[in-house]
């Protein structure tokens, strides 16, 4: 049997500390995730300094557990991969400092990974990628369409001009009294309700591939406040269903439009909001009808949130391409993919 390439992968960009061992970029030997959700629930959202403090409490425990669960030692490893952005700078620095130190101490190459590339490569655990490929990336910090001509090549075709979709979920969650993080509960409520409010579908008919969710958020909040003022009680499930219908309509319509102009072999849905059942079901229903030759790969539910395994999968591509970092690696909180050349946005 040929030797496997093992990568120890670190992720600490927001409120999860995670270390994973990934073999050949597509087999998870371990994926240890310490989530801080219960801490940040106190504040209704992630507090960066609190997140950074939790990361440093967890980081070596996660390394120990990841190696133990994978039943490997440092001698078995071929490289160390780490998220260096985008994300919260103080949080990123814990993972970056730890990963650099492990790489130095054990003479291993260091692979700096873009967190968003990691989200896309969470889908690589489902099956091998075929190019060209389009990724719809939807998370708390990002909503973007990314075109890939080959492994490791990422070009933004469209993105949100204001709030990310996940951010909008958290904000209307507060209005509905749903604790942070609100996405999962609103998704469940939406399945119990009907789209009775017909909120706006921002930019749905515009020729570009960009998104906007702040208008939807405002329309939602205004509707609830107006009802409060006149003493009317609105059905929360219908509110959630109406909100989600608008988000899913816009994401789906824009994705279908981009696929008309850029035919691809596969469409990947990834990012924290990729766990949304409404969105998954809609793409599963619409894509085969409109683009029977494009295969849909949904990032596995367990790998939609932040985790080290996805960083190991993206890092493996860079390992093969010898794209390494060194001891000077810093966190880059506003790291982004480049736009597709000549894309008007």
């Amino acid at each position, binding site marked *: 049997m040929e030797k496997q390439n093992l990568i120890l992968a670190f992720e600490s960009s927001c409120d999860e*500390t995670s270390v994973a061992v990934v073999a050949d970029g597509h087999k998870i030997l371990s994926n240890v995730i*310490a989530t801080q959700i*219960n801490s940040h629930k106190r504040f209704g959202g992630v507090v960066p300094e609190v997140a950074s403090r939790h990361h440093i*409490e967890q980081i070596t425990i996660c390394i*120990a557990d990841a190696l133990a669960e994978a039943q490997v030692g440092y001698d078995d490893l071929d490289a160390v991969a780490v998220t260096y952005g985008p994300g919260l700078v103080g949080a990123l*620095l814990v993972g970056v400092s730890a990963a650099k130190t492990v790489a130095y*101490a054990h003479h291993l190459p260091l692979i700096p990974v873009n967190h968003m590339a990691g989200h896309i490569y969470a889908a690589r655990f489902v099956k091998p990628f075929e190019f060209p490929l389009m990724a719809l990336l939807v998370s708390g910090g990002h909503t973007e369409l990314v075109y890939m001509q080959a492994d490791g090549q990422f070009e933004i075709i469209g993105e949100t001009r204001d709030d990310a979709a996940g951010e909008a979920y958290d904000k209307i969650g507060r209005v509905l009294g749903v604790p942070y993080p609100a996405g999962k509960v609103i998704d469940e409520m939406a399945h119990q309700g009907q789209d009775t409010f017909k909120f706006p579908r921002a930019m749905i008919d515009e020729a570009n591939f960009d998104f906007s969710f702040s208008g939807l958020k405002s329309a939602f909040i205004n509707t609830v406040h107006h009802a409060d003022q006149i003493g009317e009680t609105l059905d929360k499930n219908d509110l959630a269903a109406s909100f989600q219908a608008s988000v899913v309509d816009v994401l789906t319509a824009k994705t279908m439009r981009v696929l008309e102009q850029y035919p691809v072999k596969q469409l990947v849905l990834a990012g924290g909001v990729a766990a949304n059942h409404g969105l998954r079901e809609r793409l599963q229903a619409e894509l085969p009808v409109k683009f029977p030759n494009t295969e849909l790969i949904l990032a596995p539910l367990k790998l939609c949130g932040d985790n080290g395994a996805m960083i190991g999968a993206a890092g493996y591509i860079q390992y093969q391409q010898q794209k390494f970092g060194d001891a000077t690696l810093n966190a880059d909180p506003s790291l982004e993919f480049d736009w597709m050349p000549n894309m008007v946005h």
Partner: protein
Amino acid sequence: MKLLAIDTSNRPVSVAVLADTKILATTTTTVGRNSSVTLLPLIEQAIAQAGLTADDIDRVVVADGPGSYTGLRIGVTTAKTFAYTLNKELVGVSSLAVLAANVTIEDQLVAPLFDARRDNLFTGLYRMHAGQPVPVIADQHIGAAEWAQQLKAYQAPIVFVGTAVDQYQAGLQATLQANFVRALPQQDLPQAAVLGLLGRNMTPVKQLHAFVPHYLRLTQAESEWLAKHPKEDHAPYVEKI
């Protein structure tokens, strides 16, 4: 015993490698853009200059606070991970004690200062004894004026050390008069070699995973939450999923 000493608790970054009491290599810089970029290359250089490899180090000594939260986390994460991953000893030393130890006059009272912004300090009071800074008043976060009043009660000369002293000198001098003594400028920077010597005889931490910086302050979000929920137990804050 080979020691690696690391101090990134404020803007200066200081790294040293020692063999027992012998300093093999030491570097202190104040010009780095940030310690995330500077620290590991300095560690690599110092260990290489000392003719050693990472695995030759027996003990890591780190300045563990107070100081800049981000600076502390870079230093402590690096030190903790180094010690954990190579199965070495780890020792934490007060960042303020490291600075105080630059003043070597026997029996002298020393007050190291870090600026904590808005007229607040991270500081403590030490008395030098046989080259060791012995705590007299514990490290704390305190208003500059209140600190001056506390120190006045000692009615003895106190040496103030640290790059932050200049900015607070007028107020301190007004309260302490002739008992305010300014350290020499070359004593104002933390020296990892001094840190290494302080950490050499200390007991290593037993619970390495639990080792975190001494921030000496709760985050604002946490203090506000605690004020509103004095009796609520919200733990565990972090859960493995």
